[in-house]
């Protein structure tokens, strides 16, 4: 995994530089940045989202930019405050899911044998059991609230990451530098944390992004069903109330349209960021780009095979 070209430039700064150079990644980063900004400072400017400010179901106007809900709350205020809670839960769950997945996946891949067999069976079973119905029965038994929601999303979401981490660890396990570390008598823990984990930085970042997309979507879905804490303001509960107040059949599009658009924009931004990362850190795609530029300089069209050797002279 020679993502070295990217990270070599020096930790965080290297990442920033790499994102700036890639068009997809920059679009994603800009959109995401705006949402993070709104989540951080937005709630300071919009006032209490629960306050009953006007007649219910008013269309957008100057007083209420996105109109009012079926209860007479300001939709814009709810949207902004919801951004904070939804993004926070999404990111926290995204990180947790990857941590759990990495722990189990690396253990399985590194130790192999029976441990691997057992753990693989475990995450494969979790992968094949449909997530949403499982999430629903777990959430229904626990007291509703953000902690329950996060717990449920981690339980139903970690398996995919474990699978990816396992196969990645298996591949690294065969490499010479790991064998050398084993022969040198280093402890298993040290080999995993110092030798294997650093080679997976870009994979882990990509997984956190992907898992955050999952977490936001699943969270909104569960809350839409009424399994979140319906008294808190999040994107999901906003949609829940919109559906409950039959916003659709009264034609009140402004109560649900902006929220869904925000969910999609964040999801899209994260996906763009991820595919940008992929092009930056995947040596195969990177070579292809250099090769294409090289051919274009000589006025030729690229063929269909991936270049292996490049004459950079």
């Amino acid at each position, binding site marked *: 995994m020679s993502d070295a070209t990217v990270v070599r430039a020096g930790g965080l700064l290297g990442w920033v530089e790499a994102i700036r150079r890639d068009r997809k990644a920059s679009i994603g980063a800009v959109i995401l940045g705006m949402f993070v900004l709104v989540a951080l400072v937005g709630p300071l400017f919009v006032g209490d989202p629960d306050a009953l400010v006007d007649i219910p179901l008013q269309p957008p106007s100057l007083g209420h930019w996105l109109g009012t809900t079926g209860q007479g709350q300001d939709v814009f205020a709810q949207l902004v405050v919801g951004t904070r809670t939804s993004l926070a839960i999404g990111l926290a769950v995204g990180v947790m899911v990857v941590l759990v997945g990495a722990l189990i996946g690396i253990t399985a891949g590194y130790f192999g044998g029976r441990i691997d067999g057992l753990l693989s069976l475990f995450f*494969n079973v979790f992968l*094949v059991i*449909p997530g*949403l119905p499982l999430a*629903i029965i777990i959430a229904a038994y626990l007291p509703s609230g953000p902690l329950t929601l996060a717990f449920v999303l981690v339980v139903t979401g970690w398996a995919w990451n474990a699978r990816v981490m396992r196969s990645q660890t298996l591949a690294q396990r065969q490499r010479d530098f790991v064998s050398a570390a084993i022969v040198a008598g280093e402890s298993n823990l040290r080999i995993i944390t110092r030798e294997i984990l650093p080679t997976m930085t870009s994979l882990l970042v990509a997984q956190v992004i992907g898992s955050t997309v999952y977490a936001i979507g699943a969270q909104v879905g569960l809350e839409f*069903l*009424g399994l979140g804490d319906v008294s808190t303001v999040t994107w999901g509960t906003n949609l829940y109330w919109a559906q409950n107040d039959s916003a659709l059949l009264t034609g009140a*599009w402004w109560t649900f349209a902006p929220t869904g658009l925000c*969910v999609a924009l964040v999801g*899209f931004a994260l996906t763009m960021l991820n595919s940008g990362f992929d092009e930056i850190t995947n040596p195969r795609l990177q070579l292809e780009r250099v090769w294409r530029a090289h051919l274009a300089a000589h006025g030729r069209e690229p063929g269909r095979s991936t270049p292996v050797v490049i004459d950079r002279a």
Partner: protein
Amino acid sequence: MRYILRRLGFYLIAAWAALTLNFFLPRLMPGDPTTALFARFRGRLAPEAMDALRETFGFTQAPLINQYVTYLSHVLRGDLGISVAYFPAPVSEVIATGLMWTLFLAGTAVIISFTIGTLLGIVSAWKRRGWLDTWLPSTLVFLGAFPYFWLAMVALYVLGFTLGWFPLGHAYGDDLTPGFTFEFIADVFRHAALPVGTVVIATLGGWLLTMRNSMISILGSDFVNLARAKGLSPRRVVMRYAARNALLPSVTGFGMALGFVLGGSLLTEIVFSYPGQGYLLVQAVRNQDYALMQGIFLVITLAVLGANWLVDLVYLWLDPRTRGPAS
């Protein structure tokens, strides 16, 4: 043959895991489950609900292992307890009313989406960096980022409510009696168009990208170059040589996506008041009908496991390597 038996064994283990989860979840709650439930709902749970709950999960004074055996034997006999929301109907009967609609909706959506998405992926990889390849994947990724049920709400609002092109919900018109008449079937399709359409649009991007990426790496491989060098027609090279092999990752993903799509289509059903499991699920959540919730979970899990096994059979047919050296 060994492969297919091994997969079958895996699904049996998965089914057992789902059953066991179903058994232990209520017992993992702190304290005695029934009293804890009672405390939580501050008496909002009707007495018959408590009895139904106790009976369903075999909450008795017997040791845990006996309770577990009782529970398993109940489930194997198809006895999933009594529904609270539809008291006193048994859960199995309640679920049976909506099962066909859910399978119809999710099944049609998955098959349509997989077919169209995969074909688009092939075209996109073949005409690489053409206009289709430049715009379609990112557009579909954007559409795929929307929650299914939100796309459903927008579609219902625009195409159903404002323009009046499609019915606003339910599986068929109230004025029709179900039967194998042309009129009834046409009406069912008219009602299914929007729910199926939104799920298809939301999932199309995933299939396209999987197929496109695996096509690109296959198109660069030696045997494809050889086929081209032999002067075979591009159509033959793409479909018979590249696409068939590139299909494998998509087929593997198919099984896994089933559960996900089914979950999404449950939420879509709610928006369209479609009379499937999603609608029952909302009733169950609103009425704290645990027996019904768990029953739906079990039935959906079993359906997904069964479908996965069918996908394995297709895989066996597509990839000779899985058939093993013996055959």
